[in-house]
């Protein structure tokens, strides 16, 4: 699904250049449930932005679903994002004056699907996430967990092949976090690739593969079988 080879990215900060990703190699198969970890400054946000086609990279190659993602113009990038990727954010990023249903339906609006039809689809997705009764409520009338579920429904509605979640539980308490992770797991079980960026070990431990970043390269990849050992190691640290 995702093949990244020798990825370099640096940011210009005035006269200084900050080299963030230094030749990163990464392969993610279709249907994987991956978390990307790393301390701040390790480059995980940069990697996520590149994965989400929100940012361009300097050197290397990035194939998404067999397609080379490189130097796309904004319009093409937007279309690819709309088609391939569903985003979930830490701070939900729902649009405050649209109700839950309209928020969920937004990606379909950009696909020029009629209002009636997209609202109907949005309702279905909300129903699946147990939020049917809340469809007409504004984001300000929802709890944190509910907001994140609305955001997940929004990420799913365009039937993307990858879900990118940036600290999806960062703004939630632990009970709600678990709930959200359960939902993501279910989505993964249905065959979608889910990639989470997190700094919480117990959240990362719920995924099937952990990619640890350090100083712009992958330090360690922990696969499914080793997760228990990872858990133990973390708890002793």
């Amino acid at each position: 699904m995702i093949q990244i080879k020798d990825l370099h990215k640096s940011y210009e900060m005035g006269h200084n250049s900050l080299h963030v990703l230094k030749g990163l190699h990464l392969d993610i198969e279709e249907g994987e449930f991956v978390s990307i970890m790393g301390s701040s400054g390790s480059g995980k946000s940069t990697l996520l932005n590149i994965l989400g086609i929100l940012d361009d990279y300097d050197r290397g190659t990035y194939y998404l679903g067999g397609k080379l993602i490189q130097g796309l113009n904004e319009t093409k990038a937007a279309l690819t994002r709309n088609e391939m990727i569903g985003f979930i954010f830490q701070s939900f990023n729902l649009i405050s004056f649209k109700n839950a249903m309209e928020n969920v339906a937004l990606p379909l609006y950009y696909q020029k699907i009629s209002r009636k039809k997209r609202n109907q689809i949005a309702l279905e997705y909300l129903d699946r996430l147990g939020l049917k009764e809340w469809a007409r409520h504004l984001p300000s009338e929802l709890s944190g967990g509910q907001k994140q579920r609305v955001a997940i429904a929004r990420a799913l509605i365009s039937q993307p092949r990858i879900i990118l979640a940036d600290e999806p539980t960062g703004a939630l308490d632990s009970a709600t976090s678990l709930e959200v992770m359960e939902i993501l797991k279910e989505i993964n079980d249905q065959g979608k690739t889910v990639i989470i960026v997190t700094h919480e070990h117990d959240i990362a431990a719920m995924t099937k593969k952990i990619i640890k970043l350090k100083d712009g390269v992958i330090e360690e990849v922990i696969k499914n079988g080793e997760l228990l050992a990872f858990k133990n190691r973390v708890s002793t640290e």
Partner: protein
Amino acid sequence: MFDLDRWNEIWNALAKNKVRSLLTAFGVFWGIFMLIVMAGAGKGLQNGVTQGTAKFAANSAFFWSEQTGEPYKGFKRGRYWHMDSEDIQFLKDNIPEIEYITPRNFTGRWGGGSNVIRGKKNGSFNVKGDYPDYIKIDPATILNGRWINELDIRDKRKVCVIGEKVFESMFDPKENPIGEYLKISGVYYQVIGVVRAETTININGRTEESICLPFTTMLQTYNMGNTVNFMAITAKRGVPVSIVEERVKELIKKKHVIAPEDLQALNSVNIEKEFEQMNGLFLGIQILTWIVGIGTLLAGVIGVSNIMLVIIKERTKEIGVQRAIGATPRMIISQIMLESVVLTTVSGYLGLSIGVGLLELVNKVMENSPSTTNDRVFFTNPSVSLTVALSSLFVLVLAGLLAGLIPASRAMQIKPIDALREE
């Protein structure tokens, strides 16, 4: 383009900053309102003046004598002289371009006191001596009776044509003045006509307040010899009156032994030139109107641009999310442009309507006011043409687009990542 969601978004964006949106809208409203009102008022002034002078022969010039300004052929400077009746025929014979030429003499109410008496009524009016042709240069409506004719001139009849105001003050409203007598400076004259001026141009006092005698009668009664105070000419069609004016001056100066370079002795007014000046003035008013109006409008438009920038700043995150979940740059740009156009067009249209409404109101009030029937005003039918209205509407939409341009490009500079990371 006409999706409900889109309008919903526009409404929400503007409603979130109600006061600011209103103030901004007011800027545009005021700009277009001022433009319309000023353009209308300028048009009203122009209509008033043009209507007041339209019937006056535009190709006419007027002459009167003053003291000489230069010594010439043994005559010293400051000599008194006057034109005479012979000059009229002389000019007629020598300048074929002259269409009408008529002398006019005055004896005024200078020195005060009443000069006109009828029974117990008395009044103070200008008395003028005229030829029949005069009415062709400075048209007047004959309300009753007739104007001076050739027989009056030939026989030096003691008759008079009176202005409307003279009739009102010397007669009862229901009286028929024709055939009645007025005593003017001690001499009785029979009234033969009542006139109302068709123009607002006054030559030695308003026509309404004047009494016109046959020119020859005046010369005789007032013992004027063959003096001519004042002379009016019109040029034939197609000949600029300025050329005739120069020619008249040249001939008269020669005949009366006045230095050719003397600018003061024979004074004149050229209506053609005055009209040109007036037209220049109106053009100036129009240009000024548009400069001020467009300036005000521009200030309003800059306000719109400014508020759109603020809105975009506040919605950075929202725009970032929209782009992350698949909104193309075109969608974002058109959204912002549309918001800007809606804001300017709605407020501008309001200004346009209220401005036109105000002009209509003024028009109604002026039409209904009775004073306009007698006393002419220099302000008639203020209005803006459909072209002005439509073009200002077009300017508005264009301005809205322009106002949206900077904010839209600013919105495109927002990187989705920055927007989303902004906590």
